[in-house]
């Protein structure tokens, strides 16, 4: 298909699909990302959906969006603002206009009737009131054309309407110069039992493509395949990557994987994903609540599985008491917490980083455990794997923090061959040799041994009461309690010797060190990168390991005049740094709106300190 002579060559460009919850925008966005990734671009995605299942059709509350950023170079974020907006109805236009650069807007003109215009909260038709003058607006008859195309398809009218998103996708494909074949293959696989749907969808997709080509109003973008590391790639979101990282660790340890879980947005997809792989011996236990989620996990760990529980903020609050038990028992478990907007039910479908303090301190007594955070959708794989490795090698609960942005956002992932993953040394002891009892500690890590029921001669009891340092029996002796509290703290502290040092991006010395942690990595990196290109003396130090901090953190901090800590909360990591490395003075940059950072805002903020 032709018409591409005037394509604009670009390094990066982003598109946002938006429509009613029922319009299939999440699928449309996903297909667009997949096609882009398969074409060879680097991508980053950001789904933005309402917390209501199905808010009233046609209203702002019901708008569902999906932004995709594609690039020839490394793409770190889904893009602050979209270059192109697809709006399937007036509400989608209204809700998303603030997220669009002065670029192109493709609207389903058929949906701009009076009823829908009013429902969206407009008083006048925005297509006719000059409010969009600075945009290039394409009036696409998406609904009517779809109906037209499928008139004779034999599909019922509901099914016909349901495929209108494919028309929009076709338009987008032409505009971004994407091949259709990947999506066509998707139809073939997805609908192999309903061939009529394969044909229908293909037809609508193509009609959209042709429409775009024919109207001669659009100039296509061309984004060459990215220059990325060789290898096999797969598009992956943070939740899937987490699930797979856990499975990889279990395979490495040759232990069954057990997940004790209670559904909660945005963490449930980890449960859904893992529930599929019975063939790999994965057991998912959907518990009656989050407490049972972690308690079954503790039982499973004692019984010798690699045991994990996943949740989100309010669920983590419920697990506090049991995390304390696992700490006291020195049982290896992993707690994955996908952070969302709080407090309380808060903004359940939005992203935030405000569970750090509760991860560090949300339980009674002196109860330290390892806390770490993934920082991109795909490295959720790596950190889930690492969390398991630390848990079993150090015999401690590990809390892995991700967030709604990472969980649902997707990125190409260079497929890892499990053979190349590091070895995991479980501390499983299978027979009594010398004094190798359940409560003897390793000199380097202070971890005790892991003795699994069924092992002869090493029967032992674990529990929540303070235990004697030597025998593991309950003990009320004052000095022993002090020793045990210090030992538990030291055990966690020593993990620092086994994790990679803090890396920096930028100059080794400089004026401003930008500090971040977890899911804000892409945005901070983009901002710092852009300022580095402008010649600023700025550096990024991004943390994945929080408790304990990497051993070289103080050394890194010492080389900068100013340190600014950036977080999607009111200042939790910065306060943790104040406690842990009180010798430095910290500036803060905080945002708490349920949304990721905006690169432009970050740059502006950083420049003030440069």
């Amino acid at each position, binding site marked *: 298909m032709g018409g591409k002579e005037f394509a604009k060559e670009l390094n990066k460009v982003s598109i946002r699909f938006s429509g009613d919850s029922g319009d299939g925008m999440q699928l449309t966005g996903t297909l667009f990302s997949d096609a882009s990734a398969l074409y060879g671009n680097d991508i980053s995605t950001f789904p933005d959906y309402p917390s209501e299942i199905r808010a009233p059709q046609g209203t702002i509350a019901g708008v569902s969006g999906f932004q995709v950023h594609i690039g020839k170079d490394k793409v770190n974020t889904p893009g602050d603002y979209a270059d192109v907006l697809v709006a399937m109805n007036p509400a989608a236009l209204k809700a998303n206009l603030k997220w669009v650069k002065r670029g192109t807007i493709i609207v389903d003109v058929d949906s701009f009737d009076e009823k829908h215009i009013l429902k969206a909260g407009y008083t006048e038709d925005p297509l006719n009131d000059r409010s969009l003058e600075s945009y290039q607006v394409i009036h696409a008859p998406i609904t009517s054309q779809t109906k037209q195309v499928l008139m004779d398809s034999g599909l019922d009218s509901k099914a016909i309407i349901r495929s209108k998103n494919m028309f929009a996708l076709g338009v987008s494909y032409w505009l971004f110069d994407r091949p259709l074949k990947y999506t066509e293959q998707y139809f073939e696989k997805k609908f192999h039992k309903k061939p009529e749907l394969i044909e229908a969808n293909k037809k609508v997709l193509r009609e959209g493509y042709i429409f775009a080509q024919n109207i001669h109003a659009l100039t296509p973008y061309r984004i060459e395949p990215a220059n990325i590391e060789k290898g096999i790639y*797969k598009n992956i979101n943070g939740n899937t990557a987490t699930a797979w990282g856990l499975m990889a660790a279990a395979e490495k340890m040759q232990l069954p994987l057990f997940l004790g879980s209670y559904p909660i947005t945005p963490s449930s997809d980890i449960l859904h994903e893992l529930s599929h792989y019975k063939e*790999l011996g994965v057991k998912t236990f959907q518990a009656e609540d989050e407490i049972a989620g972690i308690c079954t996990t503790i039982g499973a760990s004692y019984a010798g599985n690699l045991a994990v529980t996943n949740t989100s903020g309010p669920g983590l609050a419920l697990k506090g008491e*049991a995390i304390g038990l696992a700490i006291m028992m020195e049982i290896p478990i992993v707690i994955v917490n996908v952070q969302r907007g709080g407090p309380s039910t808060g903004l359940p479908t939005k992203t935030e980083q405000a569970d750090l303090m509760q991860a560090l301190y949300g339980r009674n007594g002196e109860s330290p455990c390892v806390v770490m955070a993934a920082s991109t959708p795909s490295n959720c794989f790596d950190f889930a794997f690492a969390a398991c490795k630390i848990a079993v090698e150090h015999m401690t609960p590990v809390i892995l923090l991700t967030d709604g942005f990472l969980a649902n956002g997707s990125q190409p992932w260079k497929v890892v061959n499990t053979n190349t993953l590091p070895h995991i040394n479980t501390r499983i002891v299978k027979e009594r040799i010398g004094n190798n009892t359940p409560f003897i500690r390793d000199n380097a890590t202070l971890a005790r041994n892991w003795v699994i*029921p069924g092992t002869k001669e090493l*029967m032992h009891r674990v529990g929540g009461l303070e235990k004697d340092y030597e025998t593991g029996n*309950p003990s009320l002796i004052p000095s022993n309690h002090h020793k045990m509290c210090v030992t538990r703290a030291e055990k966690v502290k020593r993990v620092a010797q086994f994790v990679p040092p803090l890396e920096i991006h930028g100059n080794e010395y400089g004026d401003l060190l930008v500090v971040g942690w977890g899911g804000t990595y892409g945005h901070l990196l983009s901002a710092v990168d852009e300022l580095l290109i402008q010649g600023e003396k700025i550096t990024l130090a991004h943390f994945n390991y929080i408790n304990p901090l990497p051993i070289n953190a103080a050394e890194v901090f010492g080389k900068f005049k100013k340190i600014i800590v950036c977080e999607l909360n009111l200042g939790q990591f910065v306060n943790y740094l104040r406690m842990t490395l009180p010798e430095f003075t910290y500036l803060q940059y905080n945002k708490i709106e349920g949304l990721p950072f905006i690169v432009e805002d970050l740059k502006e903020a950083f420049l003030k300190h440069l």
Partner: protein
Amino acid sequence: MTATYTAKDLKSSSEVKWCAGCGDHAILNALQKAMPEIGVNHEDLVVVSGIGSSRLPYYMETYGMHTIHGRASAIASGVKTANPKLHVWQITGDGDCLAIGGNHFIHTVRRNIDLNIILFNNQIYGLTKGQYSPTTKKGQITKSSPHGTIENPFNPGELTIGAQGTFFARTTDNNIPQMTEVMKEAALFKGTSVVEILQNCIIFNNATHEYVTNRDTRNDRQIFLEHGKPMLFGEKNDKGLVLKGLSLKVVNLGKNGITEADILVHDATTPDTTLHTMLANMKSPYLPVAMGVIRKVKADTYESLLEKQIETAKKESEIKTLNDLFYGGDTWEVK
């Protein structure tokens, strides 16, 4: 089956820390007698408790977990699901199991995970020194109810059956042979077995079960149910239970022409809950309190269904290793 270990081998070195005269001592005894007789390897035994006076795992030379208040059912469920070859006992009190732990309890029962739940029902919070529990008799004065409680107690048997329970039994702490027998049956049953033990807390709720458990009168106030046997009881075994409409009634053999043939025969294995619930609900003084195995219905256990799904998936799926999954599906190569 003969075991290679005896009750003695099950005594741990930890000193038993219950009040002198507490019913718990006898329960521990019975448990240590029952375990070697169920044909399970010593090292495959796991005893899980919550928090309460029933701090039993420490006293057993087996694998054990003394966990947190109310969560034993969930923790034990995790142990069994993760490692079905283990033989898992849950030790719990009326507070631990039915107050804070009530939800885990009913869900465990519903799932029919193969656990043996031994419920020490002393109708009081012992460890915390005497507050009323969800099984305390209505009106009773306790540390936290100086004006008398105003709550209706649960009947553990009724709750178990109402939560889709497959096994319920009852026994008393002053009857070691009966306890041992019942525990063995519970252990051999595949599914969640709930064994309520009427236990005396000599310190905070002394004699709460006295009317029913007193050795001198118990034969007239208890009935020991056995599957397939007529429901007879009494000092002279001359009383029996019959159904009158939808109610149970006590009759005397020999009076009004009643013979053993008129007496109900206990069928513990019928899935129907009606009669089992009626039996579990029998209360003094008009009816004898039912002891023994009241309900014992064969049904798939959670962990066996799960193992089956795993086996089937292993057979049928093309994914044999993680690499199959990782490299399968939509991938692309950057060269």
